[in-house]
């Protein structure tokens, strides 16, 4: 069957419900899905943040000290460490006044990938090119 592409779209803000975090962790689980698939089969997600989903991913979060939970920032860094493509909607960052350089990166942890701030058209393209789309 080969590779199945997924578009995982986070459109809700973080730190109320766990939905947004689960979108990220489900995307990361592409790393281990092969143990349940036939040889050569893979799942390739693109993790996209849009709408209010762009609100809670900026750097400088302090979730561990305040609530004892892993921050969304850390989860996002982990996505980069496992070579996921992470797209953040440029128009929505601008709408909410969030500068692009507020996006976290994981270069100091050895990640090759960086967050891609892109126009919504690129997120639409990810949806078009995927076999399934999952809105979190």
């Amino acid at each position: 069957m080969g590779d199945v592409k997924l578009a995982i779209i986070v459109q809700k803000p973080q730190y109320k419900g766990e939905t947004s975090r689960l979108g990220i962790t489900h995307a990361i689980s592409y790393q281990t899905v092969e143990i349940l698939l036939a040889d050569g089969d893979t799942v390739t997600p693109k993790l996209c943040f849009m709408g209010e989903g762009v609100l809670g991913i900026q750097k400088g979060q302090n979730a561990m000290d305040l609530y004892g939970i892993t921050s969304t920032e850390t989860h996002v860094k982990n996505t980069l460490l496992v070579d996921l493509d992470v797209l953040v909607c440029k128009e929505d960052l601008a709408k909410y006044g969030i500068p692009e350089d507020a996006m976290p990166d994981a270069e100091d942890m050895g990640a090759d990938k960086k967050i891609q701030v892109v126009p919504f058209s690129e997120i639409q393209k990810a949806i078009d090119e995927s076999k399934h789309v999952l809105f979190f």
Partner: protein
Amino acid sequence: MKLGVFVSDFKLTADTLDRLKADNLGIILVLNGIYHATTKENGKASSLLDKTSNLYALSEDIQIRGMKDSDVDKRVKVVNYGDVVDLIFNEFDKVAWL
């Protein structure tokens, strides 16, 4: 792309739906989303109904809210769960829940 979108709320999902593009867009109104099909605001029907001609509303969710199929905007086709299954498999390449 043939995309079927489930709308389950009255207000919250409008922004995302406004942005999604598809060659063939279907909107399936379920849960509180059925109010888009039955309820006018200040005498005006929901603008969501202008987005596509492929509009569906779940009968069970209409009836549980004390309304009848006859309360539904004429542009919307009333369907049951079995019909929804057929829509998912036969009318769309992929489906999304907003």
